[in-house]
């Protein structure tokens, strides 16, 4: 068993959870558009 992997994996899980919760519970953060657009505020 590789030692570094043993803590790296849970770290990834926690980051993922954080992202999931943040995206779903704070949609205001996404700005005026939806995740659909390849949004670049060029015009």
């Amino acid at each position, binding site marked *: *068993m*590789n030692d*570094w*992997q*043993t803590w*790296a*994996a*849970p770290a*990834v*899980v926690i980051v*993922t*959870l954080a*992202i*999931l919760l943040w995206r*779903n519970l704070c949609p205001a953060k996404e700005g*005026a*558009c*939806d*995740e*659909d*657009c*390849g*949004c670049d505020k060029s*015009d």
Partner: protein
Amino acid sequence: MSSPRTFALVGNPNTGKTTLFNALTGLRQKVANYPGVTVEKKTGIGRNRHGEEFTVIDLPGAYSLEAKSPDEEVTRAVLHGERADTPKPDAVLCLVDASNLERHLYLATQVMELDLPVIVVVNKTDTAEELGITVATKKLEERLGVPVVPMQAHARVGMEALQVALSAEPAKANWKPVEGDTAARYAAIGKLLEGAVAHSEDERITPSDKWDRVLVHPVFGWLILFGILGGLFFTLFSLAGYPMDLIDGAFGWLGEQVEARMAEGDLRALITEGIIGGVGGVVIFLPQILILFFFIGLMENTGYLARVSFMMDRLMAGVGLNGKAFVPLLSSYACAIPGIMATRTMESARDRLITTLIAPITSCSARLPVYVMLIALMLPAGTAGQKALVMLGLYVLSILGVYAFAYVFNRAFKQTDKTLLVLELPSYQRPSWREVGMEMFDRGKIFLRRAGTVILGLSIVLWALTTYPKDPKIEKQLADAEAVLEEQQQLLDSKSTEQNQREEAGNVVEAKTKGIQKLTRKQLAHSAAGKLGHAIEPMIEPLGYDWRMGIGLVASFAAREVFVSTMSIVYLGEEAEEDSVRERMAAQKRDDGTGKPAYDVRTCLSLLVFYVFAMQCLSTVAVTRRETNSWRWAILQVVYLTGFAYLAALATYQLSGFFV
């Protein structure tokens, strides 16, 4: 400024607006959402004769600016500059249909009263000619003082003239605002068109009519429709298998590469089982999504889709739906995600909501692996015919469920005002493969992005649930066993080993492999998912399930197809061939000590019924949330469907006790 930066494109639905939009913008298009509503925002970039770029906004189709649907409301609001996210356009392209000028000018004249420069595009002049209608566009140009461009957007005829108009100084129309109601407006339009439009006298039978005689025929119409649907399903469930196998292979290969380059460990497991396994499980549906949108796109592009709604309306009206719900529900048999997205074509928010809520009851393709596995367990000695019969029964059950819940929701959501169904049947036209292709590509992208991001995250979380917490004692035992295994494996691989050593090594390898499988299973029982399985066991016992199936149920709540791979881990401790998993499950005995099989007919049936109804797809929940703009309905979906699944499975298990 000499030429406008932003043009809005407005017109009735089904006018060929999209075709013109594509002609102006080519591939430089963006599809997004107007915030706050589930209306699509389409923008693109075009180039005029001076080489300057301009923006085109394809506003949702509308019959009038007296908005009666969310789509029309957006069009109205944007033209009035009322939307913070979309500034008022600099000029408007009004698309009207030459064969029905009066009706189309209703909206166009409303736009002309908005104090915005206007260019009028008179489209489908070829169809009009077939009907014996000629439009003197030059006369209209004189009267209105704005460019009036004849066009056949389909064939790209008239684009040069349009470019001239787009590159020139924009002008406001010479149009006096109409005072009064619809009749007054039509009267004013009549005056405008006096002497500018000629109808030929003879009654012509349009080519569209000839097609309709067959396609909407009381006998042939149905045969053709079922033929097309049959073809669609055949393609979806058999032909799609080839690309699906390819994708499966690709992900499998990817997993092998990672395993070869990374040392064994948690992170590697996370990557291979969690990420590759999880994302692969979704991407594998891409061929079906593409095929589905191809068929639907083709039907819509040619105008046939309206005929389908026309024919199916009666069947849907009985439960309070209308014909336009047919295609979204049909699509949901492949996958509810594009099905729910397709409800955007329905004007009534209430109808859209009901359709969205019942869409997951349709037996989507993700359930197929589960059905196949459970049916095989249920009828180990059964013929292919018997198995197919059970499968058919499950589909019939789902159809009944759709109707039943449509009826329930129809009664539950009181109708505030009776909605009027006005279905416009556009004239048929040759399919534009380019447009169909572009639509297919767009939808595919959206599917991948949506399902992929959510499922990726959830797969990782799910993997964590089935891995942590770990029992350190078992970990130690696993580490020891693996060390021995590797040692013995090396002996087997080495050429210098003698025969008796080789035999012994072989035995040890076999024993250790079995031991490791056993330990992994124990580790699973120790994990959060395992504990959850044990915790819900009392609740699911009346349904005929035990804690191992409980783990499968818990795990597949994110996505149904996960059930199969989870069962593999539960019974073997690792990813394995489906046959060996099934053998294991078939051999599994009940925990009550009677020695009877765990997966008997009653339990299998109960599990199947559960899977028909349960809401086990977090991607669908996510899409529902997005399309309805609130969590309320998404949560309702999960609760009512899973609750009903529980009761139905319970009833199935208990009642079957009297027969089996």
